[in-house]
């Protein structure tokens, strides 16, 4: 029996293969599956890559990193927990040569380096790499090939760093503990540990790293020991997570959120297509039942047919997504070197299966209705049961829940989902208002426009589903494009409003003095300077950071490193207060802080919560008493965390400064002199900043453009399927109108007017929705005041209007091929 049904389904599947509703369904499902499978494969590849990376490039069984040297007791404890320890020192320094400069990571190692793995160097840029034991001898420096190029060095040149001179002796090719340098692409150099002492860098800028070889059990003990004794230190080990893992997880979350949007649209399209399926299958099922079959037959046939329809897609999906996966991997290889493409049949199958399951949920109303079908239902068509609406609402709720759960930025997700809901309400409201008011006011007038309004009003329910579907797609598309455009504009604007073209990110007190001196001598304009000290959050309300905040977020990622803690008497001009009360001048109560609003939201912190910081190996606890946000117009140096100036008297820690300077063209060469004497000043020119921005923007543009293509594709499918859903009704309406003695031209005119009105409602709704969303998200997420450009809005309106109208009319051409004769023949 089952076999027989399968054959029958295959037969009907072939028969229906070229019908629009089946074709549309295949398109939605294939498009979405290819996207999801590609995404899953790509992220899996990256995760594998990171894991592999961790195993091979840690250069130790565990690595302990902190800002200070271990005390002799701590070192003894560490030794008791390990087999062997190698210590290295790192500092960010700017190397200068012949008037050129380049910031780089300078590492100091001893003869015992490396601990595990191979250090590869060569004697010239052309010669092959050789395995090397131990670092350079004192007075020598090894540089990576990019530094050679950037400073135009050759072997044997002498580099001056502060008061010391170094001979360029070898090309640095590979360090086995490279992973610890993480994802940063900074250029690298190595010197001997003995020289580090002579260089007399500010002690607190040096990072101390202990490479440890230890058994697994020892590593576990080590982790406990670190938690207990060195809470501000960081530990990485082979069975732990990659330093990039958190970053990647957040990227994945973002991609997940975007795919939710695509699922939203697919759900709309499938809902529309399901209406046609339902009508056809219900009719068919009722006929089967009138011939004595049970309604199980109808459901079975429908299910099989749907399965076959999706099954034929699978080979195409598998092949295409593998191809796309390969393309993505080659694109990523610029960022993740040595990443390789691999076929993963099992994961592909699993992902396809999950998507199929989701599609089944979207399609389930059809089967549910078929189960309830009886012969008598044939005679009472147009009966919509409540359970169907319930299924649809459930599907919507599932989507929303998944979306909320997926994202790390709860506020942003809520806003996105919220603005989708607002847009839905808005479009529904606008269509109701336009049609009702339009119909009321034009009642007095004769003509085709009032008639069209009247007809649309009468079909409000079916029409508004169509309008909602297309409107939501348009909104999502518009929002994506607007976001892309504004991101570019913002970056441009940021560069313009930036005060000063040279930013000092970190200068110690003595370095700041040198900068001030240098600025005065060279007649350079020092715009702003603000002090801060480094502090690392270790506990929130007496819980460790990871215990307190379970979800990864931007803020959590930042707080897991040392942050810059600024002190001030009054609220800075660059901030405005959003919550709580700012401290009074010279307050006695110095253990209070103000936190940036987004950090508060991301970590769900409230006023009164207590944060414990480790500052220069001492622990301090502060209470949150206020929350601030960025206020544009008064400069760009801002801090996430601020405390009263009075606190400085109680905290013993080195002070640093952020500053901005404005240099004119002939002053730039003078910078080399400052840098040679103070290699550890961290400065970045606006030009470099612009380059970084451009690189980021180019990447974002690629990603968003790809995403926009997906949305456009789905939006077209939504339009086509919504028209397909109403085609029978339209056809009949046109025939009936012609039977009143009207010509086909009248039907065309009516159709054009109807689509113009539809497009007008959609465009208004989508633009208003985008505007509202823009205001909401821009204000809170980017601290931007959203200023819509009315010319662009007008152009957008025109484009949407003409595109939707043309597409609508084009897709309705079938329903315009009607005639009175068809009405007669229709039995």
């Amino acid at each position, binding site marked *: 029996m089952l076999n027989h049904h399968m054959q029958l389904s295959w037969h009907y599947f072939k028969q229906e293969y070229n019908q629009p509703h089946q074709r549309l369904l295949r398109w939605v499902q294939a498009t979405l599956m290819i996207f999801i499978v590609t995404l899953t494969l790509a992220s899996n590849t990256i995760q594998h890559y990171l894991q592999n990376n961790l195993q091979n490039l840690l250069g130790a069984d565990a690595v302990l990193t902190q800002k200070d040297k271990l005390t002799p007791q701590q070192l003894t404890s560490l030794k008791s927990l390990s087999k062997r320890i190698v210590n290295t020192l790192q500092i960010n320094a700017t190397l200068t040569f012949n008037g050129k400069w380049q910031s780089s990571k300078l590492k100091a190692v001893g003869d015992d380096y490396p601990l595990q793995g191979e250090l590869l160097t060569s004697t010239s840029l052309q010669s092959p790499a050789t395995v090397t034991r131990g670092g350079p001898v004192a007075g020598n420096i090894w540089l990576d090939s990019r530094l050679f190029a950037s400073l135009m060095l050759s072997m044997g040149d002498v580099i001056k760093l502060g008061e010391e001179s170094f001979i360029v002796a070898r090309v640095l090719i590979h360090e086995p503990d490279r992973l610890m340098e993480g994802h940063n692409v900074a250029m690298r150099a190595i010197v001997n540990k003995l020289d580090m002492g002579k260089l007399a860098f500010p002690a607190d800028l040096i990072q101390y790293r202990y490479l440890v070889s230890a058994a697994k059990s020892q590593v576990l003990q080590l982790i406990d020991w670190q938690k207990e004794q060195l809470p501000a230190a960081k530990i990485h080990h082979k069975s732990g997570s990659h330093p990039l893992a958190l970053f990647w997880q957040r990227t994945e979350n973002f991609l997940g959120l975007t795919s939710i949007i695509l699922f939203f649209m697919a759900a709309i399209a499938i809902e529309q297509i399901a209406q046609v399926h339902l009508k056809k299958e219900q009719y068919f099922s009722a006929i089967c039942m009138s011939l004595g079959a049970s309604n199980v037959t109808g459901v079975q046939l429908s299910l099989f047919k749907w399965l076959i329809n999706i099954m034929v897609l699978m080979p195409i999906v598998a092949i295409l997504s593998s191809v796309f996966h390969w393309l993505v991997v080659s694109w990523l290889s610029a960022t993740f070197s040595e990443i390789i493409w691999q076929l993963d049949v099992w994961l592909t199958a699993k992902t396809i299966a999950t998507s199929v399951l989701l599609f089944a949920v979207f399609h389930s109303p059809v089967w549910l209705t078929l189960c309830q079908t009886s012969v008598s239902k044939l005679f*009472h*068509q*147009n009966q919509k049961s409540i359970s169907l609406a319930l299924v649809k609402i459930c599907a919507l709720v599932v989507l929303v829940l998944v979306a909320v759960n997926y994202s790390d930025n709860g506020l942003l997700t809520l806003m996105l989902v919220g603005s989708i809901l607002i847009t839905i309400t808005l479009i529904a409201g606008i269509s109701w208002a336009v049609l009702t008011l339009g119909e009321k006011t034009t009642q*007095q*007038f*004769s*003509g*085709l426009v*009032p*008639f069209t309004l*009247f007809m649309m009003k*009468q*079909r409000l*329910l*079916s029409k508004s589903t169509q309008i909602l579907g297309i409107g939501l797609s348009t909104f999502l598309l518009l929002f994506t494009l607007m976001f892309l455009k504004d991101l570019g504009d913002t970056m441009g604007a940021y560069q313009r409003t930036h005060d000063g073209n040279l930013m000092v990110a970190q200068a110690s007190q003595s370095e700041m003095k040198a900068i001030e001196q240098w600025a005065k001598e060279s007649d350079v304009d020092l715009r702003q300077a603000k002090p801060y000290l480094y502090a690392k959050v270790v506990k929130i309300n007496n819980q460790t950071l990871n215990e307190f905040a379970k979800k990864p977020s931007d803020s959590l990622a930042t707080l897991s490193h040392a942050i810059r803690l600024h002190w001030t008497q009054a609220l800075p001009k660059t901030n405005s207060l959003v919550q709580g009360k700012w401290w009074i001048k010279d307050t006695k109560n110095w253990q209070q802080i103000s936190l940036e609003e987004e950090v508060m939201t991301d970590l769900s912190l409230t006023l009164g919560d207590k944060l414990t910081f480790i500052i220069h190996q001492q622990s301090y606890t502060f209470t949150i008493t206020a929350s601030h946000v960025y206020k544009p117009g008064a400069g760009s140096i801002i801090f996430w965390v601020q405390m009263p100036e009075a606190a400085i008297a109680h905290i013993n820690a080195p002070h640093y400064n952020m500053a901005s300077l404005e240099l004119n063209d002939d002053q730039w060469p003078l910078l080399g002199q400052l840098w040679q004497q103070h290699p550890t000043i961290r400065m970045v020119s606006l030009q470099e900043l612009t380059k970084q921005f451009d690189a980021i923007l180019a990447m974002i543009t690629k990603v968003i453009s790809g995403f926009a293509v997906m949305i456009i594709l789905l939006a077209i499918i939504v339009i086509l399927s919504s028209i397909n859903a109403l085609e029978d*009704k339209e056809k*009949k*309406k046109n*025939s*009936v*109108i012609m*039977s*009143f*003695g*009207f*010509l086909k031209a*009248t039907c065309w005119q009516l159709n054009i007017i109807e689509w113009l009105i539809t497009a007008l409602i959609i465009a208004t709704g989508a633009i208003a929705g985008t505007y509202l969303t823009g205001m909401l998200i821009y204000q809170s997420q980017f601290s931007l005041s959203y200023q819509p450009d009315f010319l662009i809005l007008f152009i957008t309106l025109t484009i949407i209007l003409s595109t939707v109208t043309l597409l609508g009319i084009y897709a309705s051409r079938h329903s315009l091929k009607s*005639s*009175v*004769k068809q*009405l*007669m*023949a*229709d*039995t």
Partner: protein
Amino acid sequence: MSCSIELKSVSQSFRNNASEKNASTITLFENLDLSIKQGQSYAITGPSGAGKSSLLMLLAGLEVPTSGQGRFINDNHTSTLDNLRAEIGFIFQQFHLLPELTALHNVALPLKLRGDKQAIKKAEYWLEKVGLSDRAKHKPSQLSGGEQQRVAIARALVFSPKFIFADEPTGNLDQHNANEISDILFASCQENNAGLIIVTHNSLLASKAQHIYSLANGELTKALSTNSVNDQQAELKQVASC
């Protein structure tokens, strides 16, 4: 002022393109003459497949005959059947009301399209005429077949067409309802001075027409109607007055 539709030696045939090899032609009728006058009622009967519906389409000018021609004579002014379009209404076996409109709005539809400001008033008048004023606010799905067909009749007549074409208007109704509907249809057409052309298998319905034709084997023959004596006299009078 009387109008008429005239078919002069029309033939209708279809090429059967089902199979390329034996492309045969189906000829429904050849050299057929028929004249329809406004204000009169006509019935066309005949076996299934004889070409009754096809003939109706020719009369309505919705299709062009293979040979011969149809003419529309309006006040001694002769023109092609294309000019007939605005002057005719249809009634279908399947009613074909628009499901999302109420009975009242269905009836008002043709007038609204023409921009008639009195649309609703006239529709109410016609609904009352077919005896459905109490169901004005109901949707087609809430009406019985007979009631739906009454709405369809009101809709076809509301814009005062000169001719009404009805293909099996009672085909979906029981005898009792069919009888009632046909009475309404004939009376309304008479009152409106509209020509009524009915295609039917129902002999009772056909017998109510002033002129009864039978189409079979490509031949259109005029049958004698039960009240043909009166009608013939009436017809003679009319011919004389022309």
